[in-house]
């Protein structure tokens, strides 16, 4: 049992923290809320140049040869500053499915492009029924002479607007779980992408697929094994999202304590009042509890150990804990915190999106409940 970072991890963390502090100030986050693309190409290039898109991938593809765990450390730091750039998506929803489920040819061809930032891929899972179940997938992929013809509508696809590959989950058989994953170029004929306006001002899209033709070689992983891909990537996604929330929680805690020290009312800093002390100590305790439960799951996932329970514990806990931390912060900040110009609301709006991404608290509690034999 060793909860400390090793040298590489610590260095990565320090570098990322410094980098993001400089490159991703609050002004940048605000600017990207209204940006057409939702990210800044110059900053994205700098991130690419750090090599961070290659953290969990093998060196032969241009990666760092590290693991998911190290990528989580990055995500925690990205979460701290609410990084708008698609680091999470490009690596976790684009690169990792290909790395884990792709054949050698796909990996050789696509991973270097993803790692070098030449290409951005994303994952299209959700449909109109937004539950995370095989049965909610209605999108059809039928065999045709030249490959597959895919039709359907995908909802809530993150960063589809800037992705050139959409890894799409579609139905390929009659059984509930007869799903497969396909790599679809976003330029393919029959695709139309329209953006959603969301609470967290991020980029999510609706994708319409109208008889989109793709070659048979674009299948990712085995036919009818797409649900396995979803389950695995959603586990990584749940933990990755939790890491972002952890970083965000830490920042909210720090900022709130700082405010409590400096804001005075009734002739003294509000941090001297029992209620405010209680608020701050509750936040600190929640955040303290969050770190272990997330990294335990991240480590197990990175080690390819069975981490089903840990993932569900981490995501259900963090979905709630981060929401609570933001709520307490608002309470300490009073009126100023819910104005558009204050930083806290940037965090609390995104907390909602993170809470429900890759399964909300109830979803993961249900899952854990089954794992406990209920």
């Amino acid at each position, binding site marked *: 049992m060793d909860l400390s970072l090793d040298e590489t991890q610590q260095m990565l963390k320090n570098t990322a923290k410094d980098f993001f502090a400089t490159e991703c100030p609050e002004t940048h986050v605000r600017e990207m809320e209204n940006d057409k693309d939702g990210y800044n190409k110059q900053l994205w290039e700098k991130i690419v140049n750090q090599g961070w898109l290659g953290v969990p991938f093998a060196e032969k593809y241009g990666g760092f040869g590290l693991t998911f765990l190290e990528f989580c450390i990055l995500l925690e730091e990205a979460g701290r500053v609410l990084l708008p750039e698609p680091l999470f998506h490009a690596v976790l929803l684009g690169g990792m499915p290909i790395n884990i489920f792709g054949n050698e040819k796909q990996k050789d061809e696509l991973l270097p492009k993803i790692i070098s930032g030449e290409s951005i891929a994303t994952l299209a899972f959700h449909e109109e029924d937004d539950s995370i179940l095989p049965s909610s997938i209605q999108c059809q992929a039928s065999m045709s002479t030249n490959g597959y013809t895919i039709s359907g509508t995908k909802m809530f696809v993150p960063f589809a607007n800037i992705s050139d590959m959409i890894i799409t989950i579609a139905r390929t058989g009659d059984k509930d779980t007869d799903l497969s994953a396909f790599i679809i170029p976003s330029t393919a004929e029959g695709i139309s992408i329209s953006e959603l306006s969301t609470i967290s001002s991020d980029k999510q899209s609706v994708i319409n697929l109208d008889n989109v033709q793709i070659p048979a070689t674009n299948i990712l992983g085995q036919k009818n094994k797409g649900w396995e891909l979803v389950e695995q990537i959603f586990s990584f996604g749940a933990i990755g999202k939790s890491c972002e929330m952890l970083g965000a929680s830490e920042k909210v805690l720090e900022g709130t304590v700082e405010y409590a020290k400096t804001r005075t009312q009734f002739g003294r800093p509000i941090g001297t009042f*029992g209620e405010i002390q209680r608020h701050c100590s509750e936040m600190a305790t929640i955040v303290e509890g969050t770190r272990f439960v997330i990294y335990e799951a991240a480590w197990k996932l990175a080690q390819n150990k069975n981490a089903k329970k840990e993932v569900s514990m981490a995501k259900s806990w963090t979905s709630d804990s981060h929401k609570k931390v933001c709520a307490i912060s608002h309470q300490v900040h009073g009126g100023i915190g819910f104005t558009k110009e204050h930083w806290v609301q940037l965090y609390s709006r995104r907390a*909602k999106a993170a809470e429900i991404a890759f399964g909300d608290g109830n979803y993961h509690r249900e899952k854990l409940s089954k794992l406990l034999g209920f």
Partner: protein
Amino acid sequence: MRFAFTEEEDNFRDEVRKFLKSELPNNWDGVAGNNLEEGASDKEWDFALEMRKKLADKGWLTMAWPNEYGGQNASMMKQVIFAEEMTLARAPGRDGFGIRMLAPTLMIHGTEAQKTQYLPDIAKGNVQWCQGYSEPESGSDLASLQTRAVEDGDDFVINGTKVWTSSAHRADKMFILVRTNPEAPKHRGISFLLIDDMKSEGIKVNPIIDMAGRHNFNMVTFDNVRVPQKNLVGELNRGWYVGATLLDFERSGVEYSSRCMALLTELIEFAKTNKRGGKYISEDPNITKEITEIYTEINVSRGMSYKIADMQSNGEVPNKESSMSKLFGTVLEQKVADLGMQILGMYGQLGPESKHNKLKGKIEQEFLSSVSATIAAGTSEIQRGIIATRGLGLPKP
């Protein structure tokens, strides 16, 4: 003891309901967000003013006023019923500042001239007032306010900044607390003034946009703004006590429970008629348990409000009860909004402007607005302090 309304009260409720049904557009759904009865857009605002006139014509806005000022001395329960029905219907048009705050203050502390000048317009719904109380450095600690008014000839000259001024950008006039004696102890150097024209030279209204993206609050700056001395209400330097005046007009907080019930009712309907993962959302025990709890809590919250109305009917003055009602009711607003987000799942992210939204994107707006519930108009922390010290007699910290 009687937990039912009288026939007369039931009839009044029906009358209000019928009126609202006929006056509100078909499928009227209110303006999204639970803290902005009047709405944020110009169109919403115009409609609210139109409704206000009609409500004034009905005599309902001033029904709580004493007969001598043209009111009806209406019973507390009748006022509660009116508030409930307006809130349940999400109907705009009430006037918190003029009718419920300034008018009672003038009735007690105003000169005859002030009463004659201001009350009739307020009663008719002709004028929009706003309230200049909070300042950037004086939030919970309001009495530390620093906006200065200095006597100069027949005028006061005002300099300073007010903040969280709801509807200042819509308002014609403002009542304001200013410091007229900076040497005196903080509660004893404050005066209560009336500003007749928000367009006066030196007044600047700066919008504060909230996290739901809407404009309700403002920061108002005063740069040598002149106000005639006759606009002083009550004695000089006694404004703190003038400002604290409240007649026993309905302030039971019944809006909390009504607002919650309106939303919960929609959520229940939605959960019963929408499926997720092949099952109705209402078949999810996590959801139904929460609905059941909140349903009960809404009933508890309503009870707290009825209790306050009952006390007022009996000539008692609620103090801790109002704080309890707010403390409990505002947390409830946050719970309902959060439940709504749970029920809507991924769709909870989508606001009114998104074509794929559910329930018109209302839940996203309610959720964002609900953040301020436990903060605005006296934070939960302040309410608990009032309950502990004024209510339970615990010594001040």
